[in-house]
């Protein structure tokens, strides 16, 4: 990997996004003037440093999460690959619990399908079929994203350096084996206070959510890592993200799998 960045700059940029997350404040994107030439590879170095800092603080990785998984979004951002980041223990919200909106900057939610593998998957050349064969179960999930950047205004390297906007995850507790599910056509609705705000089906994620896990395994292989058995994997938003407000009751239903909910307070 070729980079002009020295370790000092990598640390500085990781401090920049990590600091904004801890202090719950918006920042201008890195590529605006701090470091306009930030490449995707460099952005992952910043993310690695950010992850290292969190681990050093005693926080634990729960599992990986995928972003930019819709063909429309990839075209719009002019990229060929989705992106990944990590959900940490402190981000997990129990099903049915409440979050306090003041713990976030400008949170949004996305409905997702989660995977848990029964064995590790190591790329390259992992296919969706490999993923399904290695999947122990799938579950409905809600991801809370909270870009540290003003107005969610970022380029692809910016969002990678911000741990792909990871801020929260609500894992549903209805676990289903994938054998009897057609995950490309499971229907998904995201409702707030009983009103449907967004909807779609599994194919909205890279044609099939298992493709998302395969792409993750193949991307991680480039740095000698793999997708680990037992970790919940968030495969990417099935619809556009929806803004949260205090008083919201958020419910996601996934056809044939189940549903998951949480509340939003002041």
């Amino acid at each position, binding site marked *: 990997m070729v980079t002009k960045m020295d370790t000092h700059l990598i640390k500085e940029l990781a401090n920049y996004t990590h600091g904004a997350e801890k202090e719950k404040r918006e920042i201008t994107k890195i590529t605006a003037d701090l470091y306009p030439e930030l490449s995707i590879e460099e952005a992952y170095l910043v993310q690695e440093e950010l992850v290292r800092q969190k681990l050093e603080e005693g926080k634990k990785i729960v599992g990986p999460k995928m972003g930019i998984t819709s063909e429309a979004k990839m075209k719009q951002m002019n990229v060929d690959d989705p992106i990944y980041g990590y959900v940490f223990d402190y981000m997990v919200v129990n099903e049915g619990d409440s979050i306090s909106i003041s713990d976030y900057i400008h949170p949004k939610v996305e409905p997702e399908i989660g995977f848990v593998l029964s064995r590790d998957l190591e790329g390259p050349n992992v296919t969706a079929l490999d993923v399904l064969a290695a999947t122990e179960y799938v579950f409905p999930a809600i991801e809370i994203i909270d870009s540290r950047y003003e107005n969610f205004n970022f380029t692809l390297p910016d969002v990678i350096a911000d741990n792909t906007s990871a801020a929260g995850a609500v894992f549903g507790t209805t676990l289903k084996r994938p054998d009897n599910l057609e995950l*490309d*056509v*499971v*229907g998904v609705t995201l409702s707030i206070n009983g009103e449907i705000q967004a*909807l*779609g*089906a599994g194919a909205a994620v890279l044609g099939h959510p298992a493709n998302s896990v395969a792409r993750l395994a193949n991307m991680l292989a480039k740095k000698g890592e793999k997708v680990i058995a037992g970790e919940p994997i968030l495969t990417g938003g099935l619809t556009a993200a929806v803004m949260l407000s205090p008083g919201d009751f958020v419910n996601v239903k*996934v*056809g*044939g799998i189940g549903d998951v909910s949480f509340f939003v307070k002041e």
Partner: protein
Amino acid sequence: MNIETTAKTESHVKHLASAWSNGQGVQPITELDPDISIDEAYQVQLHTINRYLQNGKRITGKKIGLTSKAVQEMLGVGEPDYGHLLDDMHVENKGTVPFNRVLQPKIEGELAFILKEDLVGPNVTSLDVLKATDVIVPAIEIVDSRIKDWKITLADTVADNASSGLYVLGETFKKPANLDIKQIGMALYKNGELQNTGVGAAALGDPAKCVAWLANKLANYGITLKAGEVILSGALSAMVEAKPGDHFYVKFAELGSVEVSFSE
């Protein structure tokens, strides 16, 4: 209706029919007759359908349109509309539509209800609909507009048989008792590329609710939904434009898929 409105209705019927003789869309009716009411627009539709019936065509069912919140907001309306399905609108699954059968077609994936009992409004509920339904079948609706460039308001599409074109039914069907209709997902592909995805709840939150709306709406006109009729309950995602040579494949959870092609 008095003589004046009857004459106006007949003139609108002819205006819409001229789209076929000219092979292209016509000026919106609401530009010719800005004061036309929705009830008058339905009269134009009913007169058009009566003409077809006189020519030997047969009603096979109904379609419900404007069932998504986004489309209702776009047209500034608070309820769906409906149109009639005729026997010659039916296309076999995996069939090819000659492009001269359509003007400016668009594709929607829908759930079709086949009734086993009549449904008579008012006061029909979603549960009544499910009880009166024999089977649910996956469907492609080919919507079409006789109005140039789809420049429609509510009255225009109502008069134009709710922009009905053709319909294709799949070969897999299920009893409604075995389905969670609201959560049936759908993926729509054009020439092998995913165009969009949807789910049953996209139609007013519940496709059965759309059929109940229809049964109740028809009660105003003294019309009953009959056993055996096919009811297209509303689009599960945004419609997609079809061009000559295009192939469409729509896959539904638990109900298989439906396909249709257009000739060059």
